[in-house]
């Protein structure tokens, strides 16, 4: 089993993506999808870094729901700032010291920060473990860093147990 499917999550993602792309639940399409899901990870396994195992899928789902909600809420907030007077904006570079020590989890965190409007991650320093980001309007950078740590980093740490 381990040899047949070295990356079960990747295989599942390929299968689902193929099913979505072919847009038809015919037996043939699903069979091709299953074949690709087995073949592609096996052929490309040497290129894949060691991703940490998903320890708590429930927490991951809750985090995904929170991010989706935050995207909508933050979008409205940023829209107001874009249309309002620009002189009142306080853009800032913020450095967030990280507690997690895993490159993959740090990448996910950086992506979440970029996807939620109002913040864009710029660099993850993997020697000092600091995430630097740019905020569109941050009157209080310290509070923003604390919010990101509490809202996204803590659940991520729990999900990957790192």
């Amino acid at each position, binding site marked *: 089993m381990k040899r047949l499917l070295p990356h079960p999550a990747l295989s599942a993602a390929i299968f689902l*993506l193929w*099913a*979505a*792309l*072919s*847009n*038809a*639940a015919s037996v043939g399409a699903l069979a091709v999808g299953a074949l690709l899901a087995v073949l592609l990870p096996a052929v490309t396994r040497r290129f894949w870094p060691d991703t940490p195992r998903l320890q708590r899928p429930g927490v991951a789902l809750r985090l995904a729901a929170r991010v989706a909600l935050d*995207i*909508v809420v933050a*979008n409205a907030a*940023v*829209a107001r700032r*874009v*249309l309002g007077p*620009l002189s009142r*904006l306080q*853009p800032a*570079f913020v450095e967030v010291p990280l507690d997690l020590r895993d490159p993959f989890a740090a990448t996910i965190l*950086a*992506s979440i*920060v*970029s*996807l939620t*409007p*109002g913040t*864009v*991650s*710029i*660099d993850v320093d993997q020697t000092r473990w600091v995430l630097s980001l*740019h905020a*569109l309007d941050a009157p209080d950078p310290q509070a923003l860093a604390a919010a990101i740590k509490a809202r996204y980093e803590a659940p991520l740490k729990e999900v990957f147990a790192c």
Partner: protein
Amino acid sequence: MNPAVETIVSLLILVGAAFALLGSIGLARLPDFFTRLHGPTKATTLGVGAMVLASSLHFSTTAPGLSLHEIAVLVFLFISAPVSAHVLAKAALHRQRRKDDR
């Protein structure tokens, strides 16, 4: 088509288009590169997201069977948008530093 579904599809299209426009207004209006970077990430996440959901809902109700391939575009954009924002930010920082050195 079911009028309730039609209302939802129309609303999603309007919301999506409005946010795409807002992102572009941000891109045109904001004062420097790093603040401008916030515009497109917004247009992608909610603008195209709402539009694609509208299309998926529309084809799922008008044609037989579910229409999920639009979701593939959405997934791809959600993965690629942070990466391109990150690479652009790095390039901008690099150029700024080179300009300061000169």
